């Protein structure tokens, strides 16, 4: 059963994730996102973006990295072999673009258990780091995992 004392925990900003053009192209191809703004700089700039635009679910790559701080902590008792992804939500304050340096603050919003089933909800607040050290909100990623108990 997932450790309920982790609810409400906040993890400080992790090391920056540098969003690269080839990573955006690779991810877009993997999900079949064919829109030229993911692949072609001229097309992206034509839509007013400074660089290639990430697909709507690209933030999962950044979020997963932050969530690992919690999920891989043995004290959290999240048995990954019993985890089923239940829900995901992306709120984009602005699109992620190549060249962004993203840092993520991870929140464990809730940890609940009913019988042998645990549900955990994490929230990643993703910010772009400016050259002056400022932070601009980019995306909020809320992820809910279900963890089946040993006897189910």
């Amino acid at each position, binding site marked *: 059963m997932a450790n309920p004392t982790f609810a409400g925990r906040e993890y400080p900003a992790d090391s920056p994730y540098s969003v690269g053009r080839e990573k955006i192209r690779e991810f877009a191809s*993997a*999900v*079949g996102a064919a829109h030229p*703004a993911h692949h072609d700089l001229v097309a992206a700039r034509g839509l007013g973006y400074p660089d290639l635009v990430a697909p709507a*679910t690209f933030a*999962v790559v950044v979020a997963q990295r932050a969530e690992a701080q919690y999920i891989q902590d043995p004290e959290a008792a999240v048995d990954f072999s019993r985890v089923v*992804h239940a829900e*995901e*939500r992306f*709120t984009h304050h602005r699109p992620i673009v190549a060249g962004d340096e993203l840092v993520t603050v991870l929140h464990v919003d809730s940890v609940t258990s009913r019988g042998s089933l645990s549900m955990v909800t994490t929230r990643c607040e993703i910010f772009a780091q400016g050259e002056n050290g400022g932070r601009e909100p980019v995306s909020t990623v809320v992820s809910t995992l279900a963890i089946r108990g040993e006897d189910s």
Partner: protein
Amino acid sequence: MTAQTGTTPVLADLAVGDVIGTRTIELDRSRLVRYAGASGDFNPIHWNDAYAGSVGLPGVIAHGMLTMGSVIGLVEDWAGDPGAVVDYQARFTRPVPVPNPGTAAVEVTGTIAAIDAEAGTARVDLAVTFDGQKVLGKVQALVRLA
């Protein structure tokens, strides 16, 4: 109606119930491996039959995030601007088993579910099915339009 390349939907022309389009997404094992690499999600239930069986699955299943990430292309292409998708959510209600060899065909239909003229947004709900059964629930994309 389905938007053609070069035409951009205008909020004032939309009505709740309009179908923005339909699409079939073919998932095979190579797509799963490719998504694993691109996303960094290397959970073996998405590429190893023996492991998937050992945790009670019928076999390798697609990443829920691959299905979610693939079906939104319909909305991005319709909007004409991938950055117009300002909010996107889904529930993973049923796994999509991916055979070897072969493909799993996921069907998606997008429908205008709500229009907020003041906010300049339309909500597109996606019906996502495999084998006639829903595999994602509450699949909603909020799109900013002119």
